[in-house]
């Protein structure tokens, strides 16, 4: 609370200068961390006071210690790396196909008539329901995770790309055509930028599904990764490692969101709605 009061007059006094505005920006960025940090402080206090048993929820320090221990053995960095690469591979493959099909169906009615009903039918199958089948097909190899993540991220990106392309202002397209804009320009300078806000919505939605799918897949069918680490820890009753895994998922999810937001801000700086997000 004292932080709020101290920072405000400073920001009001000299809003035009760069240094205070930078400080204000940094302060704003930290605002989002006040609640998670506060919760951790409460959690530690409850553990120290003996209100929380270590066998139910180990203290933040215990979790941190577990993290340090696993970092030293190399287990944690390796598993984080494996999970991260799986997530990215699934996002690139599934998102890439979804993006391409979304563009194709948005631009070509023939492509839309050919593929859209099929895609809508597949969409209505919860992709996690395919896990038994996927295990039978791929066992617990990498393909299984890649397939599930790719399938999960495909639909939000497909649907939002399609929607974005279709909702580009027809007046702008008419203008561009009547001004003799070449076809490639029409796509890269009118249709794609017009669809981009919607595509980003799809991307952020896909990032959520990406982690969810990966956690489930790694928990059920994997020999490495954070989900696997958590399941192993459960077998040996290492509850601190289980909690650590969950917190790492939260951090990775936040990281993905930060990257998506930065991309959004860079690509959509023309849009007043995104300028101060």
């Amino acid at each position, binding site marked *: 609370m004292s932080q709020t009061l101290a920072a405000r007059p400073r920001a009001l006094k000299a809003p035009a200068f760069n240094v205070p505005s930078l400080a204000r920006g940094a302060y704003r960025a930290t605002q989002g961390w006040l609640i998670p940090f506060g919760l951790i402080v409460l959690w530690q206090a409850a553990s120290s006071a003996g209100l929380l048993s270590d066998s139910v929820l180990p203290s933040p320090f215990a979790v941190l210690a577990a993290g340090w221990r696993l970092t030293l053995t190399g287990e944690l960095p390796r598993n984080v790396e494996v999970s991260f690469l799986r997530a990215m591979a699934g996002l690139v493959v599934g998102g890439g196909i979804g993006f391409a099909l979304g563009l194709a169906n948005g631009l070509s009615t023939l492509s839309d008539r050919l593929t859209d009903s099929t895609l809508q039918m597949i969409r209505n199958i919860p992709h996690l329901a395919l896990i038994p089948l996927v295990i039978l097909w791929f066992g617990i190899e990498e393909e299984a995770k890649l397939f599930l993540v790719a399938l999960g991220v495909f639909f939000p990106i497909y649907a939002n790309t399609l929607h974005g392309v279709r909702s580009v202002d027809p007046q702008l397209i008419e*203008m561009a055509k009547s001004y003799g804009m070449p076809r490639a320009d029409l796509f890269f300078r*009118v249709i794609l930028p017009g669809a981009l806000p919607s595509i980003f919505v799809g991307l952020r939605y896909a990032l959520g599904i990406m982690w969810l799918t990966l956690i489930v897949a790694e928990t059920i069918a994997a020999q490495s990764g954070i989900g696997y680490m958590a399941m192993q820890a459960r077998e040996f009753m290492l509850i601190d490692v289980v909690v650590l895994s969950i917190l790492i998922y939260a951090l990775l999810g936040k990281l993905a969101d930060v990257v998506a937001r930065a991309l959004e801000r860079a690509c959509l700086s*023309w849009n007043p709605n995104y300028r101060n997000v």
Partner: protein
Amino acid sequence: MDLAISRGSALAFDAPVSDAPHLGAPVTARGLAKSFGATRVLHGLDLHVPAGQFLAVVGRSGCGKSTLLRLIAGLEAADAGRIAFADEQAARKIARVMFQEPRLLPWARVLANVEVGLGADRAKPDARRRALEALEAVGLADRADEWPSVLSGGQKQRVALARALVSRPQLLALDEPLGALDALTRIEMQRLLEHVWLKERFTAILVTHDVGEAIALADRIVLIEQGAIALDVGVDLPRPRHRGDPKFGVLEEQILSHLLGSNA
């Protein structure tokens, strides 16, 4: 009071231009017809616009004046009849349209928006210089690096005008481009339009519902009624025209009474 002109003190069109001055293109329409569903918007319309003429098209809402413009500009195809320019050229080669809305690309800076007007020539090395000259001509060279969203309505239409003029079209089709502007900005824009037209001498076809605007700008006014030309009058007043001029009032009264009379 000469707001629009004095603001853009360094007018590019006053400076020697690289391209040789050219006359506008003549346009001839014969037996034009267009229907939307069961509604016959135009039927059997004939119109000849000589090269370099400033023609205003007036009429009640829904009389088909915008449709006529869209047919001439090649935005839509006629059901019957034909439109011809000199040398059998295509509309998209020689004509530029200024729409009622600015239709600027919100994700492109002002200068890049003007470059859109160059069409396929945007890739040429002099594109940027030409776009800047066109922006100067509308008095907005200092806003070249802004996003369109920070401009006022009048400024956006001026950028749209620069975009329409940057390719030095032989025909400029104006579809009520000043309709959404406030009264003062409107007068500024009318002066700017007259100024660039006197300089460039393209053929101009202005669709408007404002009879005063038509008289202030046009050499000739046609009134469209029930899908055909009902009145075709020349405006023989010296430029710049003043609304206080008694002849201005007489002409305005004549056209307005025709418009209102057709209602009875």
